[in-house]
Structure formats: C-alpha cells, structure tokens
C-alpha cells in the first residue's frame, strides 16, 4: 500500500515561498513553472493527431484498454483491483461511443499518462543532493574520511574514484546556447547517479532523464528522483499511447531547451559489450525536437553528446552476464532482484573501488548535431574541413523547413550508427577489461574447438603462468596504444602507466572479495581462471578490437572472440 502510494505520489517538500529562478540558473530550474504547460502541450499534440482520423482514435482506445487489461490481470495487485474495472467497462463501451465521447476519453487517458510521467524539480533538493550525495558515497567508501569529507568543499573519496574526461570547456560553453542531449552507454543502474555526479564535478548542467518506475518504489531514491526532474517510465505498460506520451514528453522538453539524458541502448548491456544496436525511439524524439523548432523558426540547436561510462568493476556484473547467457535472460527487460537492490552489495562495491585508482571514468565525446556534424566553439555545425553549415538545411524541402517524420526517422537511424561508432572510439578500456581479455583469449586458445558454454564450465581448471600472462598483457597493451594513437579507442591512465604485473594485481584485487566468486586469482606463480563467465563479461568490452590486438598465434582465438560481437 505504502509502496504503491510512494511510487505513484512521491513526496514533495512543502513550499513556503516559491523559488524564483535566476537568469544564471540551468533551464531545469524553470521546470515547475512550465510543467502544466508542458503536460498540456503533450496532451494537445497527441489528441490532435488522433482526432483527425476517427478510425485511428478508436484503434488507440482499443489498444490502450486491451493492453492495460492484460497487464492488470497478470499483476493481480492493488492497482489491478482499482483500475481493472475502469478498463473493462471502457472496452465494452468504445464501439458505442460517439466521436465526442471517444475524444473525451482519449483526452482523459492521455492527460493521466502525461501527469504520471512528468516529474518535479525542487531547487532545495537539488542543492542538498549536490552537496550531500558525493559526501555520503564517499563516506560509504571510506568511513574514516566521512567527517573530513562532510566539512570539505570538495569531497576527496568520490574524486579519487570518479573521473570525467573530454572537452568539458567546450560543453560548458555550449550549455547556454542550445539543448544538450547526453547519450551514454549503459552498464549499471548506478549509471544515472554516477553521470549526474560527473556532470556536477565538470560544471555541466543538471539534466532530465527517464527513470524506470521500479526505481520509485524505494522511498529515498523515489524522493530524490522525483524532485530532481526525473520523469517516470513504467516499462510494464505496453499501450501505444503511453509510448507516444513518453516520446513526446522527451521531445517537448528538448524543444524547450531542457538538457536531457537517455540511454540509447535501452537497457543495461547484459554482455558487457559496447552497444552497437541502439533503440531509436527517444533518439528520434530529439531529432524531431530539432525539426519542430526549425519549422517554428526557433533558433535553439540540439546537440548530442556521445558519452561512455567505464567501470573497472561493475556492480551487477554477475547477474547481467548470467542473464545474457540464458535465453530467459534475453527477454528479461526489468531485473528487480539484482545487486542494485541489495544495499550490502552497494557497500561492498564502494568499499572495493575506493583506494583502487580510476575505478570509473566518464568520457564525454565531442558533441554533434542531429546529423553527425561536429560543433565549433561558437555552437555552429561544421564540415570536417571546418566550413560552417546551417543544420536547418537538413530539414528543408525546396528551401523551406518542413516536418517529415519519415525523413527524420531516416536521420535517426543514421544518427544511431554514428553514435555506435563514437561509442567504440570513446570507450576507455579499464584494467579489469584488458586483463580479462588476455585471460579469456588464453582460455579460448587452450581449448580449440570447444564451444562457448563448455568453456564457461571450466571453472578453476585453466592455469596460466603469471609470467606468461604479464608478457601477453604487455604485448596487448602495446597494440592498444597503437590503436589509441590512431584514434580507434582509449585506455585508462592505469592501463597506460602500470607495469603488466601491477595491472594484473590491480585487476585481481578489484575482483577478489566483491563478486561471489572471483574471476581469477593467484595460486603460487600461476593465475587460475576461476569464473570464465565473469572474465567473458569484462573482456567483452574489447570484442571489436580482438583481432587487431592479437599476436599471430593468438589470431584464431581472437577471431572466435570477435565473432561474439554478432550477439551485440
């Protein structure tokens, strides 16, 4: 009961005096004063679109009722008891409703959906969060520093663990000139928290983002999510209208200049590989936001920031890879019982990463316009040779900006390909990933002809001389450096600077004591491959580069590894 209450009506702080945003405040500070307008804009556009075609209107109502009845019948909870009656009665009446009645029902349904999606932004919660969250996380990581960190202007523990990279000055410069859309890779439920911190420490603006409704069931997380501008996404709802509401809400926010964040991969990368096939729905909403502004002659550019979130240790690695490896897992979109929901795993995770330099690197890539062009210092789109071009030209037909959803869908598909290519280039390979790759390649090499699942069963059976591992690590690192010099990928400072022995020890240290079973450990002078599934997960980040970083005698194994990429 309380859980449902909190997830549907998250707590808000009472307002004694309304906050009047200052001109220097980020766009999101204006959100509360615009929220009703945004909701009615979304409702009005969707209703107008459906009302123009009576058969489409009836289809939308039938679709909504059918999917909601199906969902609620399966749920059999309190929400089902409350709402099932409404939808069952509606589906019986749709055919008998006249046009006016159908429009009224549509308006009600869409309004309820849009209100449920729309978030809240409370500057007081924002200020509290930006001061307290880094300190609390730091405190969990290093309890003995908690008092010092609470007093310090900039808490140290988090700073040691989290690094932000990229041309931050350029992004800071652009933030007041258009809408920034951060589109990161997605590995963990920690991503949005970590990214929010990276934006904060980089002097970049807060962003709005969609958060799964399942996250709103925890009252504390729900309170922060709801009051920091997050909009709620209920992935259980399959209704087409709901998807339209979500897309349009995101679009309207971007049109109005709110900086946004969404994960084009859709869900966390189960395999640990760099995402290749991106979901284009929300990406398309950002492209359409640009078009709509152009058609309305509003000069507010939309820029995408391809971002990679790189962890040396992934909180939910075991569950994710297990999911990837089982057919059941492929279809399991929302995981509610993973390490993210276990507070002891959070603490173990943070304690593990502290003291191990460079546990998480957020890399902000070069911003691009919706058509993949670079942006110069003045916020203008430029060709590869530096010639300034007008991005408005892309949505013009015979000299006039016109809406064209099919054209924009084609642009979105191309943008998806550009982002996937940028993800590879902007990925920062971490110590655990490089070490896991060398060990896993060794496993493949020493078990010719064996299939993947048979290899994964070889827990603790493969031992490699530590010296051999270090030699191969050194060679692999040299080849990665060459790739890095050619701009194909990036490596962390640790990977660049540590000796192979240090690199190996660091990776073993990360794994030991956090995961239920460690990925590998030392037994005398030999490295024992304890959990090939975990090694597979961490090494998967290097799949696109496997052939290029292999010795001639490792080439066959590398080709096998690269073929794993078809499942990306």
């Amino acid at each position: 009961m309380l859980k449902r209450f909190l997830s549907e009506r998250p707590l808000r702080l009472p307002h004694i005096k309304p906050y009047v945003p200052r001109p220097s405040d980020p766009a999101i500070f204006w959100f509360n004063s615009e929220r009703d307008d945004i909701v009615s804009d979304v409702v009005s556009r969707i209703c107008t679109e459906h009302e123009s075609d009576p058969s489409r209107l009836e289809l939308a109502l039938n679709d909504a009722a059918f999917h909601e009845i199906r969902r609620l019948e399966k749920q059999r909870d309190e929400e089902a008891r409350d709402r099932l009656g409404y939808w069952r009665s509606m589906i019986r009446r749709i055919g008998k409703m006249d046009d006016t009645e159908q429009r009224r029902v549509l308006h009600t349904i869409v309004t309820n959906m849009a209100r449920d999606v729309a978030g809240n932004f409370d500057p007081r919660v924002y200020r509290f969060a930006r001061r307290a969250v880094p300190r609390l996380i730091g405190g969990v990581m290093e309890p003995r520093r908690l008092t010092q960190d609470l007093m310090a202007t900039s808490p140290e523990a988090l700073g040691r663990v989290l690094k932000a990279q990229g041309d931050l000055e350029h992004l800071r410069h652009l933030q007041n000139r258009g809408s920034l859309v951060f589109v990161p890779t997605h590995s963990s439920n920690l991503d949005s928290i970590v990214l929010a911190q990276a934006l904060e420490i980089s002097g970049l603006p807060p962003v709005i983002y969609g958060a799964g409704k399942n996250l709103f069931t925890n009252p504390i997380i729900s309170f922060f999510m709801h009051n920091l501008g997050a909009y709620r996404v209920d992935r259980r709802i399959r209704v087409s209208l709901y998807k339209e509401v979500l897309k349009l809400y995101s679009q309207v926010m971007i049109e109005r200049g709110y900086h946004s964040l969404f994960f084009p991969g859709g869900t966390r990368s189960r395999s640990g590989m760099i995402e290749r096939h991106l979901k284009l729905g929300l990406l398309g909403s950002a492209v359409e936001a640009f078009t709509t502004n152009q058609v309305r002659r509003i000069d507010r550019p939309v820029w995408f920031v391809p971002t990679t979130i790189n962890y040396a240790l992934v909180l939910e690695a075991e569950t994710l890879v297990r999911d990837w490896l089982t057919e059941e897992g492929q279809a399991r979109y929302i995981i509610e019982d993973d390490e993210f929901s276990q507070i002891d795993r959070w603490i173990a995770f943070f304690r593990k990463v502290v003291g191990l330099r460079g546990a998480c690197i957020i890399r902000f890539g070069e911003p691009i316009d919706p058509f993949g062009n670079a942006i110069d210092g003045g916020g203008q789109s430029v060709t590869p040779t530096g010639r300034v071009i007008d991005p408005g030209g892309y949505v013009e037909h015979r000299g006039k900006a016109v809406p064209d959803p099919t054209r924009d869908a084609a642009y979105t598909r191309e943008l998806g390909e550009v982002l996937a290519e940028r993800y590879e280039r902007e990925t920062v390979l971490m110590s655990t990933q490089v070490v896991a790759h060398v060990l896993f390649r060794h496993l493949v090499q020493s078990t010719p002809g064996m299939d993947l699942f048979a290899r994964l069963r070889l827990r603790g059976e493969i031992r490699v001389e530590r010296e051999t591992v270090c030699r191969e690590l050194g060679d692999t690192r040299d080849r990665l450096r060459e790739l890095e010099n050619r701009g194909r990928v990036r490596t962390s400072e640790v990977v660049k600077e540590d000796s192979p022995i240090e690199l190996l020890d660091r990776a073993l240290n990360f794994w030991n004591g956090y995961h239920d079973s460690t990925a590998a450990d030392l037994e005398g002078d030999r490295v024992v491959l304890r959990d090939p599934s975990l090694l597979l997960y961490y090494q998967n980040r290097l799949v696109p580069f496997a052939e290029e970083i292999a010795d001639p005698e490792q080439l066959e194994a590398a080709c096998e590894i690269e073929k794993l990429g078809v499942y990306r």
Partner: protein
Amino acid sequence: MSLRIGVVGAGGFGRAIALASARNGQEVTLWSRKERALPEPIRTSTDMTSIRDCEVVFVAVPARHAAPVAEQLGEVVDGSHLIVHISRGLVGGELKTLTQVIREKTVCRRIGALAGPLVADALAEGRPSGAILGTGFPELTAMVREAIGGSGLRIYDTRDVVGVELASATVGFLTVVIGYAQETGAAPGTLAVLATRGMVEMSRVGKTLGAEESTFMGLAGLGDLIAAVAGDQRPELRLGRALARGSNLETAIGELGAYVEGFEVAKHLLEHARRNGLETPISSTFVAMSEGRMSPNDAIQALMERRVGTE
C-alpha cells in the same frame, strides 16, 4: 517550378541523366573535369561551385574516382542537398559502398543509389525502362522521379540502400561469368543456373554486410543481370567472352577499352565470404579459373560434383 539538377561526371550515364532531366523540363548543370558540350539548355562547367545551387545532385563517376570527386563536391554542398549516385562498383578491400564514400566526404545525408537495368543510351533517348532507387528518404525518391522519371522510366524504390549497391556490384561480376559461359557454348539451362545460383551465393555474402537477400532477386540484381545478358552491350560480357577465348585477365581488360569494376569487387567479396565461412562455389571457382589456378574442365567438374541441396 522546375528542379535544379546537378550532374557530376560527363560519361555515358552523366550525359544521359542530364539529357533526361532537361527533357523533363528541369534546370540542369553538368560538371566535368574537361570542357564538354551538351545541347541547350544544359549548362556545363568545370567549376564544382556551379553545383552549389542545385537541389538534387547525380554523381555519375566510376567507383575508383568517387572519393576524390566526392571530396571536391564536399566543399560546395551542405545538408540541404540531395545526392544520388549511379555506380556499379565498391571502393577498396573494405567493400565501401559509394553511399558510404559520399557520406564520409560530404556532409550530405539524404543520399540514394540508383541502379537496375538502366542503360545510358535508352535513358538519353527516353526509351521505356525501369530502375531502382535505394534510399531511406522518400522525398529523394519523389524528386528523382520528377527529375528523370516519367513515361520513359519507371523508378521503384527500396530502403535497402546497401542491398542495391552490393547487388549492382555483383551483377558486374556475374555478367563476366555469363559471358564466359556463352562463349564456351553453354546451354540456356546452364546460363540460368549460373545466374540464379550465382546471385543466391552473392546475396548470402550481401546479407552479412547488412543487405536484404530479396534485393538481389529484384531489379538491382537479377533484373539488371537479365538486361546485361539480353545484350545491352556491357563490357563485362565482352570480358567474359575474351577470357573464354583464352585471353588472360590483364590482356582482356586492356583490350576492352573500358574499365570493368566487377572482377575486383568480386575478389573482395569472396575474401569477405571466406573470412565469414560462407560458401561461394560458382564465384570462387570462376575467379580461380580466370586467374589460371584451375582449368575449365576441373572447374566444371568441381561445380557439378558438389552435393545438391534444397534451394
């Protein structure tokens, strides 16, 4: 209001596109490296900036010249330009399509590939024919139809751009195979098997590169191959016949007086197939035979002895 059409390249296809567009009442500017004379009202220029004001630009240059020409074009066009290329080739060992090359060298995104049984002379004269345009942008299809379509040319469209480009490149190679077989007196049934099974094996290779297999069986693939075999005077057919008469590959290509892209493309496609574990018996055997690594008798025997499966 007439469309402003740009044509880059003054070879057979470039001139044909320019003439067809002018016949449809469009305003045409043709760019070429050397001075060319075309009938009024077609404007010709050796200055790429003359293309800047065009709305739709047809790129009609052989694949091997595509990159430098696209680079020049890239200096004058922007996102408002719509580009269509007419080339049956691919670029380099990475099997880059012309669409990819244009995308890399220019900032244009609304790009399409025009292919199928298009013959330059027929297009120039307005004789009935058909073509296929691969593009994700319906507005580009509409404008190309307006520019050169009409009663003389039916232009179908597909979103499978890479399929159109690969199928088209494949036809160049299979035409050589058919030419060879014709010269050796192969029966019509043999030619049909070579054409259809050859296209099937290449469509499998295409699929791994993102193409749809069905595109190979449409106008861009089999449709174009039928036109080639029916005698539209393609140099590839003559190359195949010369090889069958005993010429070696280099001499035969040298004597053609035309650049044939199909053979090189096939070698790259076959290398890709090998790396991906795909079987391409007809194409691999023919390449081996043309390069003197296999005798014609051994080649036929090798093909006929293969296990027959379900189609």
